[in-house]
């Protein structure tokens, strides 16, 4: 049982001294910004900041693995926008007599830099916090325990469901279903695997709901014993909420000024 940390305990990596909610607000701000602003310079600035964040927190290796998913998508964006962007005017280069336009490529660059900045800023959250840290801190700042339970228990239920899945696959192979061979067999294996898996998962959630209530889950005066402390958490929250308000306000101001 870790005893409660009173003063600000400086963990070895500076990024771990920033509280989880600040990191989540950072992700929210970047998402909001990319939803509202289409300018290339803005997107490149945000990308630069997020890359710096990842390098400073020394999580670039893990962040790059997260990028792999999106590289193929970014390539298709560059291809399609470069060729077909509606506002294409000036040809920049032709490859195998395919004409790539400057406007399209710049638009693709903007889209890609936004996607990358979202991935980087999210990986800053993913790779510098742990599940229990999130659970404890959310409850500590007043999020009702029921809500914390719903959010966090997902991370714990996945390994159990995967374990159930492996048991079921073995059991069904013994009955003549072989889910690992060709596509036809795999499709035929969907029902024999998913039905027991889903029934078992739901039955376990019934048992767990009963067990939780029997152990006082719905008791109002639940008292979390562990207190985590971070570096200027309150200040960071207010700052980021202000930033989000500014982003929204500036956009509305631009729209109004264009109308008037």
């Amino acid at each position, binding site marked *: 049982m870790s005893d409660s940390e009173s003063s600000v305990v400086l963990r070895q990596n500076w990024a771990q001294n920033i509280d989880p909610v600040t990191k989540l607000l950072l992700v929210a701000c970047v998402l909001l910004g990319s939803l509202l602003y289409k300018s290339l310079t803005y997107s490149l600035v945000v990308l630069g900041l997020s890359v710096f964040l990842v390098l400073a927190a020394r999580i670039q290796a893990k962040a790059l693995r997260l990028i792999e998913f999106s590289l193929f998508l970014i390539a298709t964006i560059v291809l399609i926008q470069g060729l077909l962007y509606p506002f294409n005017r000036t040809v920049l280069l032709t490859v195998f007599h395919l004409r790539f336009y400057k406007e399209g490529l710049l638009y693709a660059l903007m889209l890609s830099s936004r996607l990358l900045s979202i991935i980087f800023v999210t990986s800053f959250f993913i790779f510098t916090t742990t599940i229990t840290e999130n659970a404890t801190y959310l409850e500590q700042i007043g999020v009702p325990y029921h809500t914390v339970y719903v959010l966090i228990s997902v991370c714990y239920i996945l390994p159990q469901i995967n374990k159930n899945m492996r048991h079921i696959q073995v059991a069904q192979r*013994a009955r003549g279903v*072989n889910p690992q061979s060709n596509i036809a067999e795999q499709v035929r294996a969907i029902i024999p695997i998913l039905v027991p898996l889903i029934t*078992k998962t739901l039955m376990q959630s019934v048992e767990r709901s009963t067990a939780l209530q029997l152990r006082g889950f719905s008791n109002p005066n639940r008292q979390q014993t562990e207190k985590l402390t971070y570096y200027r958490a309150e200040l960071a929250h207010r700052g980021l909420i202000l930033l989000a308000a500014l982003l929204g306000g500036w956009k509305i101001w631009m729209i109004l000024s264009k109308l008037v």
Partner: protein
Amino acid sequence: MSVEINQLHFTYQNSNFGLQIPALSLDKGLTAIVGQNGAGKSTFFKLLMGLLPLQDGNISINGKGSHELTGRARLTEIGILFQNPDDQLFNATVKKEVTWSARQITRDRAQVDQIVESALTKVELLDKADENPFDLSLSDRKLLAFATLLATNPQTYLMDEPMIALDWHSQTIVLHILKQLADEGRQIIVSTHDMDLVAHSFPRVITFDHGAMVFDGTPTALFGSPAILAQAGLLPPRIMQLCALLGDTNVYLTTEDYVSKHQA
């Protein structure tokens, strides 16, 4: 027609558990596999079923190499009843569950219906044929899983803790069917914790301890060697535990066995 094993070695990657079986031959009739939780019983069964890769040594099931038997061909050679039935049930009704298994070995409509009816009758679930399997009690679900195994009727039956979660009546049903199958010349291999069951129904018992075979012989011989029982963490049948309390350390398999020897 028998199960032959020699020089079998198997280890899980990140655990120090290893199963070693130098030589073993399982022929027709009832054989019990006993040993503490984690002694290797389930691993042994999965290897026989080809559900775990054969690292080295070989297993032949009724004359064929266990790993040549793939998919449907294996179903009529060897089958397993797992301890937990809930991993296998997926059809809408009890009848459809058994029909699915029967159709794995034959597509002939009449034959399938006959197989399904006989399997459900044996396990006394015919009256619940249209119920959803998961609405049944755990005991009935286990009988249903057994019925699906009876539908494919393999030459070799592997039963992993069949009696766990069965009530008394269901236990007598399962035991009765197993004895019938043994008399028909099939190999019935049952892993269990129930020493009374081993004592009163099994002519042969094999003991596992930490992945090694430490005994292969008759129950009378096993229960007559306290050292092996202690090493494998096993208890003798309840009648012997009682007699020990009364100062009598002879080997008795059943209460009737004791009474007949003392009814002078």
